């Protein structure tokens, strides 16, 4: 039988091939480009599903690896390889399924866009890079794909580059990620220097008897800088909300389900490094928890439908990072999976609304959408219920696992924080729903349901949002945790009290939102006035962007001005001088070529003579010495 596993590089190669085909041949035929991209994605998806079936029917702990040597020099070896274990198999499933559905959805959403071919080309190269990242067997390779997905993100955020805001957002995303990636690269280089090998399995083996915390701590922190940038954790979170300038399906795929989760995936992949350094773990947990709370509080008052979802994504990513930090790797990955389904559902739903409202994104200007767009509305509600953590939808199970992990590992503070965030999540999601879908606004009455090519992906994702949680639920024996877990991590028995509390908190959040925004028992306008200062701070996202702008203005621009002077007066002089000198010496040297055979012969014999004399002198001096 054909070997599924050794051929799995094809999963990565197919989207890349689609990209090349579109870029080279098909860019004049948008439809053909779109279908090529979707076909390649469908084949990759199929292959991934077959692999996942094999992985999850085999006994836990089976690992397949294959690698070819890429670079080898004394003291360093970098491979190009694939690593398939349950962890990467789950990611394969999530990435391919969401990517396929989003691409199909894009057929409707992006219809008639003049840049359709490049849109699908970018989608293909993104899918290829993301799958390459997932299957990578070592840090060197992961870094290559890590940068590639960053590039795709840049291209797709700035897809409508005619708009200044899109251009700015793309730039911001790229530069902010640069900061994180720089740390990440330093961490990788440190590993290379220390161990001479970047392979995960090799490193995991070497780390079992390496306990120099003074070295490991900085490495772990540097490596963590990568996920902080890519998964938009505080303080590098600022790019993600702005990234919503990209087309909505892009937000769903890249900035909700897959690429931003790459940071969390990396934490899981390199868990053996992080878990060896308790101090780093604690910091990770705190950063994650803080981001979760911080972002959720901002989401409470935003009025742009995509921004609410963006801050919700930040908050949920913080949740996952927190889970990693407290050592609940299983729970973090589980939440990553369920979140990918319901958050991409929510984004695609929002896209459907925006599509119907001709680009309107302010929730207060919508209203009464439920009557006109039943499929979108009810799938959106399912997604929101899953996100809020209402049993038995998927979000409930995964969120519960994280809270259980925090509670039973003794992180009571983080448990409390997580519960608070759960409450806030339910509240802001249903604020959105009551205002936009059931509110009294009038514009929504002109909306119409989206075409089937857009609603079918919604339905499938809604189904996944409902059922995906059961693979990790204690009701079915927690299959997920059997396959994906950190070595030696104990799984905690389910705790009914925690389940009940979190469900009640979620329900409470929904109820409060209902009271304020549906029944209007409590006037939200009055609330806004009474807590005006708080509202302003939250609405302006704690003025972080302004703060950064100010800091940049003072420190970066200030130092830039100094450096500019240095650059113009000194460095430029040097560089120009050097360039001039280089060019000049090139010219002068080329004058030696005067076309005369006699001259050439002179140089030839002159050269021989010089070398002979040099050799004689060298021998003479070595003999004397």
């Amino acid at each position, binding site marked *: 039988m054909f070997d599924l596993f050794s051929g799995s590089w094809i999963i990565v190669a197919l989207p890349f091939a689609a990209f090349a085909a579109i870029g080279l041949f098909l860019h004049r035929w948008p439809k053909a480009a779109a279908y090529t991209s979707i076909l390649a994605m469908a084949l990759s998806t199929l292959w991934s599903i077959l692999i996942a079936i094999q992985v999850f029917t085999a006994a836990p702990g089976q690992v397949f690896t294959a690698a070819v040597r*890429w*670079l080898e020099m004394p003291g360093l070896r970098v491979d*190009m390889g694939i690593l398939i274990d349950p962890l990467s198999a789950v990611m394969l499933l999530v990435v391919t399924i969401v990517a396929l559905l989003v691409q199909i959805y894009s057929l409707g959403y992006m219809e008639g866009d003049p840049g359709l071919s490049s849109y699908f080309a970018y989608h293909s190269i993104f899918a290829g890079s993301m799958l390459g990242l997932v299957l990578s067997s070592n840090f060197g390779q992961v870094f290559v794909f890590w940068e590639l997905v960053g590039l795709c993100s840049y291209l797709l955020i700035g897809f409508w580059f005619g708009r200044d805001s899109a251009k700015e957002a793309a730039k911001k995303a790229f530069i902010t990620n640069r900061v994180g990636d720089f740390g990440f690269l330093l961490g990788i280089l440190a590993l290379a220097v220390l161990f001479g090998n970047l392979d995960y399995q090799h490193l995991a083996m070497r780390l079992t008897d390496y306990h120099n915390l003074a070295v490991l701590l900085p490495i772990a922190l540097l490596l963590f800088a990568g996920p902080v940038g890519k998964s938009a954790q505080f303080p590098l979170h600022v790019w993600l909300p702005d990234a919503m300038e990209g087309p909505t399906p892009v937000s769903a795929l890249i900035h909700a389900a897959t690429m931003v989760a790459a940071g969390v995936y990396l934490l899981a992949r390199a868990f053996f490094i992080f878990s060896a350094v308790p101090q780093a773990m604690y910091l990770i947990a705190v950063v994650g928890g803080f981001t979760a709370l911080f972002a959720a509080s901002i989401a409470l008052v935003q009025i742009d439908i995509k921004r609410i979802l963006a801050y919700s994504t930040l908050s949920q990513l913080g949740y996952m990072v927190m889970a990693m930090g407290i050592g609940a790797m299983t729970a973090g990955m589980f939440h990553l999976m369920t979140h990918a389904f319901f958050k991409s559902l929510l984004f695609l739903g929002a896209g459907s609304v925006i599509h119907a409202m001709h680009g309107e994104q302010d929730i207060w200007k919508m209203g009464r959408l439920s009557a006109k767009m039943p499929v979108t509305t009810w799938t959106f509600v399912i997604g929101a219920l899953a996100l809020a953590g209402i049993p038995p939808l998927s979000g409930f199970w995964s969120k519960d696992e994280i809270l259980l992990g925090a509670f039973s590992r003794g992180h009571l503070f983080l448990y409390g924080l997580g519960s608070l965030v759960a409450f806030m999540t339910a509240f802001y999601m249903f604020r959105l729903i009551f205002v936009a879908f059931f509110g009294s606004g009038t514009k929504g009455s002109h909306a119409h349901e989206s075409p089937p090519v857009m609603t079918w992906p919604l339905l499938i994702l809604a189904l996944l949002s409902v059922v995906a949680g059961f693979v990790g639920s204690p009701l079915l024996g927690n299959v997920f945790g059997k396959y994906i877990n950190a070595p030696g991590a104990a799984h905690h028995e389910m705790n009914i009290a925690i389940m009940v509390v979190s469900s009640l908190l979620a329900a409470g959040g929904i109820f409060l939102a209902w009271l304020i925004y549906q029944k209007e028992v409590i006037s939200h306008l009055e609330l806004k006035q009474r807590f005006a200062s708080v509202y302003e701070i939250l609405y302006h996202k704690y003025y972080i962007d302004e703060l950064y702008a100010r800091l940049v203005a003072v420190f970066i621009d200030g130092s830039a001005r100094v450096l500019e002077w240095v650059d113009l007066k000194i460095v430029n002089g040097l560089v120009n001088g050097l360039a001039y000198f280089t060019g000049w010496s*090139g010219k002068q040297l*080329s004058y030696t*070529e005067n076309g005369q055979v006699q001259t050439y012969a002179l*140089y030839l014999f002159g*050269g021989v003579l010089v070398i002979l004399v040099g*050799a004689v002198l060298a021998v003479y001096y070595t003999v004397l010495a």
Partner: protein
Amino acid sequence: MGYLLLAPEMLLTVLGIVVLALGLILPQRGKKVTGAVAMIGTLGILVVVFWQFGYEAEFFQGVYGIDAYSHFFRVLFLSAALIIFAMAGNYLHLFSERQSEWYSLMLFATLGMIIMASSGDLITLYVGMELMTISFYILSAYLLDDGRSAEAGLKYLILGALSSAVMLFGISLIYASSGSTVFAVVYQTLQAQVVTQPVLIAGIILLIAGFAFKIALVPFHMWAPDIYQGAPTPVTAYLAVGSKAAAFAALLRILVTALPAAHYNWTMLLAILAAVTIITGNLIALAQRNVKRLLAYSSIAQAGYILVGLAASNVYGFKGVLFYAMLYVFSNIGAFAVATLVETQSGSSDFDAFSGLAKRAPMLAAIMTICMLSLAGIPPMAGFAGKFYLFSGAIQSGYLWLAFIGLIMSMVSVYYYLNVSRLMYIGKSSEQSVPVPAMARVALLVCLVGTLIIGIYPQPLSQFAEIAIQVLY
């Protein structure tokens, strides 16, 4: 296998004569057949070489030997010849009815190169080299109507004769100090001597100077730009790739098997030559306004990089030499192929002829860019992997300064390589498209794929090179 191992050499001789004879016998219209015969024949011989992999034998008491090292270079030369035959295509119309002689001379040059890479004796080596060089004298002057071509041929003849004299003098001095011209015997005799004789040192230096001329190392490079520019472009491509690789193949074999550095430490001499060559070649290339001339200087610099591996004188460096020589076939011939096609269409290889090429012939511009990025050593193109081996070999041998010069001058080289790309992509374009014959298209694709595959997945070639150099120890 015995003498059957010499089949490629014999077949190549026969093929050269057959092609020559066909040109005489066939009527005017049938002459196109000769090109096909030459190409199919070369391909067939390449297949024979592949089939002989793993076998080795020594002939005439070590005067000639076939081993993994010879196999490597046979593959290199035959593929280079094949790609050049394929890409030359339309250009050959300039030769009117003298096409079959051209093929025949190219085949004899190839035979000379193969003999150089396999000979285990200084005289045999010299004969092989003269076979190659004399073929090139004629090939350089092959454009009868073009004064530059005639000038190139004449200059090459005069200077080549001088360098042969230098080299022969070196050979005679080595013979004088060791009593033999067979590498293995020279090695044994020298091992037995306690003191290194000055005569031997002079011999080695003169021998290296002779090769330095063929490789075009500074200051023995002066001929190269004039001849590269004047000679027909396909010939230039073969001169830059094949004759250089052959000289490197022979030099590496002599230095390692006959004159190990224990007697006279030639590594420092090579390191200095490499440094001077890299610096001079790259600097002068900056000032060029003609693509062929630019490629000439760039290939002087490239020879300097390869010499770094020889100077390193360790497994990494030697592996780098072979690796780079092979990737150079794809990257450099790719660049020359584009130059040939543009020249065929516009009649010139000045920068102006390449202006806006991306609009007229996007594929040509893309291939040119990729080949040049490879020559500049940008990953993931092949050149990066090659330089990686060469420079890490130099670092391992303690020639850190040489690796630094290599890296800095590679940076300088990016300027002039990308300058051509800039011209092709941003420059103003005329409307004429560039016709690309089917065979040339195949050759271009082979160069492109070779450059990319070796860069992304260098493992197989690196292993091939490693096996080849193992036989020298």
